[in-house]
């Protein structure tokens, strides 16, 4: 298999936009191509993530639509849908296309638009990623899924609401250093603790926002990437799944798909958790970050909340997590999130992250979770 590198990244401002998901992706892609110093004609394929286009924009077939807006209408395109992990799944398949020798330059990205519909509507569309026979008819929501994880984690390990709140405070602080973030405002522990319950024990400030945005990355084969000083190498990329039904999951206090994907990605990269200097992971809810830091092997099971409270995952801590502000503060345009996380890790490993730079970062990790914990992707990146 051939080595693969990221040679260009682009991310729009996250927040509310008056442009479609296809337009937002294309804006990010223009920046990614400029960063890669390549013309659009160099792109041989587009792997694209978009989740609720069918619902919020009455738009299917979003792959060729995005390619057409970008101005590369004739390249092969495929739209990936693995709920919130869509563009990370797209990335993994694009890496395989280059590694297999099929293409030398592939564009990966995603776009999402949800703030054009009311919250009750977007909450319903996101719930389509849970089971339509067993779970949706009972009014399960995504905060509801992670509230069940939180309650199980609290019962098993004694994790507290204050420890979860510490994750929100930390990610909001990181977000103040990211000009692309949806929120650039510090919050206090008290703000989180006093916010209303959305799905007990999760409160409003434990939850990431609804977000419009786009992200894009340019992948290249070793021959194309080697002369480029700022290339960042893909060391490993793995996907794992778990049972769709909540009742079928073996232990609600863990995300088994994270543990399986992490093991495979570390093995591909020849790395272990202690080698990782910077992490962008899927903090759709504060408890999701705590459980992910455990599943990725950064902390022992049950120690994730304590580590967050102690500052181990803050910038300047033992292993900084979500220096971008994470989904919580940067925002979560679901189809674009995986690509945006990769863009942040590439920026960090290049040493170009400005005030939120993790000093001397050599190895980075991205983790993206889809829907009801049934999909997870983990990738590792490094400099030469």
């Amino acid at each position, binding site marked *: 298999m051939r080595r693969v590198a990221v040679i260009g990244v682009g991310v729009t401002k996250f927040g509310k936009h008056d442009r479609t998901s296809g337009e937002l992706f294309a804006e990010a892609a223009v920046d990614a191509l400029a960063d890669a110093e390549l013309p659009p004609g160099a792109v041989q394929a587009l792997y694209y993530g978009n989740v609720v286009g069918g619902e919020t924009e009455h738009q299917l077939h979003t792959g060729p639509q995005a390619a057409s807006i970008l101005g590369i209408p004739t390249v092969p395109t495929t739209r990936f849908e693995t709920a919130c992990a869509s563009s990370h799944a797209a990335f993994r398949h694009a890496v395989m296309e280059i590694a297999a020798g099929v293409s030398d330059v592939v564009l990966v990205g995603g776009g999402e638009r949800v703030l054009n519909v009311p919250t*009750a509507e977007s*909450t319903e569309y996101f719930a389509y990623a849970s089971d339509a026979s067993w779970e949706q008819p*009972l*009014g399960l*929501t995504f905060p509801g899924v992670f509230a069940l994880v939180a309650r199980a984690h609290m019962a098993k390990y004694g994790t507290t609401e204050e420890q979860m709140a510490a994750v929100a405070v930390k990610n909001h602080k990181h977000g103040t250093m990211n000009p692309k973030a949806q929120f650039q405002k510090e919050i206090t522990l008290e703000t989180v603790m006093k916010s209303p319950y959305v799905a007990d024990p999760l409160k409003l400030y434990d939850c990431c926002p609804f977000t419009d945005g786009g992200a894009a990355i340019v992948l290249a084969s070793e021959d194309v990437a080697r002369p480029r000083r700022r290339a960042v190498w893909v060391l490993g990329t793995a996907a794992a799944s778990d049972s769709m039904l909540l009742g*079928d999951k073996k232990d609600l206090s863990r995300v088994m798909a994270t543990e399986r994907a992490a093991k495979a990605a570390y093995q591909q990269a020849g790395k272990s958790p202690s080698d990782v200097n910077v992490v962008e992971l899927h903090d759709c809810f504060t408890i999701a970050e705590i459980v992910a830091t455990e599943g990725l092997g950064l902390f022992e099971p049950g120690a994730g909340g304590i580590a967050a409270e102690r500052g181990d995952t803050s910038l300047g801590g033992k292993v900084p997590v979500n220096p971008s502000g994470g989904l919580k503060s940067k925002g979560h345009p679901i189809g674009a999130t995986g690509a945006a996380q990769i863009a942040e890790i590439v920026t960090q490993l290049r040493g170009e992250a400005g005030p939120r730079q993790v000093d001397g970062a050599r190895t980075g990790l991205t983790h993206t979770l889809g829907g009801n914990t049934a999909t997870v992707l983990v990738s590792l990146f490094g400099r030469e």
Partner: protein
Amino acid sequence: MSEPVVTLKSFFEQAREGRLTGIKCGGCGEIAIPPKQFCANCGARAWQSVPLSGEGTLASYTIIRVAPAGHAADAPYAVGVVKLKEGAAIFGRIVDVPFEKLAVGLALRFRPIVVKEQTSVGFAP
């Protein structure tokens, strides 16, 4: 013939009458919630339909206060995962329990929730 021994349609028809139906693997004895073709535990395809008691304990729960558009009128409402005494676990709405009495380990019993043509899984004390 590859139609499973219990389909979603037949499960919810039984559930509507108050009967919870599981499937038991002839290979390893695993009790599962239908429909499944192969057993995820042992790989066998030897399911038999088994009646479930509907009795179990609450493994985790939440109170949904911000509901999807279709459920906004019901909010707030409690949902949870109940570990049945036969071994399988199942997600359902929890009714007739005051929110402050909800706790991991609480004993509950299956009760169908029927709204128009839609039957769903519910649990009550």
